[in-house]
């Protein structure tokens, strides 16, 4: 996984609530056995017209936001299915950070496994950031994960919070499977105890 320390980028405003994972990556594009290449299908139902051409109204199709690395959205972002294809698609599209008042649990967890940073902030702050983002390509944000700070285009600094372990893993690009495998002995001890108490769970 790539390390995430800080980014400086344009933010695209998507003032929609309950953006579900079917919207982020429709199920007809889940038929892949790879993790990469999903960016072209991200938001495809609203990003493209029926004839396959781009929908000019969709925010990420607008010239100012084509290089956006940050998405600012409404509450309950990422609700619905557990598909990790959602963060894969967003990242393949070039996004590195999503800022919203709230996220669905599974999506939120999936983001961290892939180096996509989800930031929760109160609605009034989101409203402000949304206004900043609407100013387009000149409105550059900085997201600093080490110091847990967002710097707004006009220089204002906003603090955010993230679980310390997740922050550590993202900054160092750590694969948590590797970390857990080191606990092998503890896991074996647990299994031995459980097997003694609930033998029916083992073959």
């Amino acid at each position: 996984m790539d390390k995430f320390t800080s980014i400086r980028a344009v933010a695209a405003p998507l003032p929609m609530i309950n953006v579900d994972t079917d919207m982020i990556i429709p199920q007809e594009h889940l038929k892949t056995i790879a993790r990469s290449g999903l960016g072209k299908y991200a938001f495809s139902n609203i990003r493209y017209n029926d004839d396959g051409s781009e929908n000019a109204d969709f925010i990420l199709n607008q010239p100012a936001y084509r290089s956006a690395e940050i998405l600012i959205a409404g509450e309950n972002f990422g609700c619905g299915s557990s598909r990790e294809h959602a963060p894969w698609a967003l990242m393949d599209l070039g996004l590195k950070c999503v800022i919203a008042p709230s996220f669905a649990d599974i999506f939120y967890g999936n983001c961290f496994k892939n180096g996509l940073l989800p930031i929760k902030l109160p609605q009034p702050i989101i409203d402000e950031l949304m206004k900043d983002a609407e100013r387009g390509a000149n409105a550059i944000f900085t997201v600093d994960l080490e110091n847990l700070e967002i710097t707004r285009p006009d220089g204002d600094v906003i603090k955010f919070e993230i679980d310390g372990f997740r922050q550590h893993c993202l900054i160092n690009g750590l694969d948590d499977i590797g970390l857990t495998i080191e606990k092998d002995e503890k896991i074996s001890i647990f299994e031995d105890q459980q097997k003694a108490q609930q033998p029916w769970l083992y073959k």
Partner: protein
Amino acid sequence: MSNPRTLYDKIWDAHVVEEQQSGNSLIYIDRHIIHEVTSPQAFEGLRVAGRPLRRPDAILAVPDHNVPTTADRATRVDSIESKTQLDALERNCAEFGVEYIPMMDARQGIVHIIGPEQGFTLPGTTIVCGDSHTSTHGAFGALAFGIGTSEVEHVMATQTLILKRSKNLRIDLSGDLGLGVTAKDVALAIIGTIGTAGGTGSVIEFTGSTFRDLSMEGRMTVCNMAIEAGARAGLIEPDEKTYEYVKGKPKAPKGAAFEMAVNYWNSLKSDEGAKYDKEIFIDVADIVPQVTWGTSPEDVLPITGVVPGADNISDPEQKASIERALHYMGLKPGEKLTDLKVDKVFIGSCTNGRIEDMRAVAEVVKGRKVADTVDALIVPGSGLVRLQAEEEGLDKIFIEAGFDWREPGCSMCLGMNADRLKPGERCASTSNRNFEGRQGPSSRTHLVSPAMAAAAAITGQLTDIREL
């Protein structure tokens, strides 16, 4: 004496391998179910890192999302991509030594239906699957939740997950259900009450006589939809009904082991005085047959209702969301829900594809005919449900009435296989999601109970089952 604990706390505590920094715990996972869509990248990850599966005996694999449901399914997978995923599952299971139920096996079906049927789902266990509706298994008093593909790989390699404890949310419902009201209506009414984010960060325990009185099938329907309320998992304490269901299932403990297990399972109850972070009491008398009108499960109303408008909504995002849903669904504020004509009816899915659901439909459609204007599809959730229905002669009733009686799979619950709606088509569906595009691009879904779906098939429009 230790502090009184909830059912969730008890299962959690019994699975902590290690408390970690910043409030995370390493939690042991007892059971892992996999399907073709969310597992290939996890197997690939193991292969690339040269890691073995820690416990192949704790995994069960079955294809469900992409499989065709027509009689000629063996030769008819609809696309190269589907075939690639189905083949990959079979190949990966062979390579890593995982038990795999092939598409043409009588036990094949939707992951959340076959887990319980095979006795793989047991009370007190932790169960995961790369699928959000894993919450279904909570009906057995198991802590069951959906995970992403990276976590699938984490469980494969370590049989654990790094998790933070969820909040305890209790939803209590006591008393008898009214005429025509089913577990599905209860689930929809709960989501209507607390919203699709109402359970975020929580595990919901469903308590009270209404849930106790439900069959295991009904309990599974309720827990299945817990995720639509935003919860990580749903839970119902195990009781005699649970044990009765589990007893004799192929992978369930037998004989003395079963007695020993029941002994343990009897301890899986929230203690008197256990503290919940939040408690919600709903009056069962307020619940009538439900139907969704919009594009989120929280857009739900009693069937007697009318399509809402956005005029009185002050929050701009809420207002935009309602307007968008109305436009997408092709509805006008004030229209009576019972005036809406449907093009298709879909009965099935992990929400309502069990034998009891099949029986409920048969009861409604027996001796009646599906309206000329409607295509009606009934898809059993597993091969065993299909066999049982056929044994009871239900298939004849369905076919006689004009239903298309299919082979098991996820089918029209989501547009990943050949069963889907055409753009703009309206469907009364017993599945769990009415998101934009869920049943195919521009599809329009109204979530209902099996009996209500059956009634819509007969009349050709959304119908109050109590009036039929």
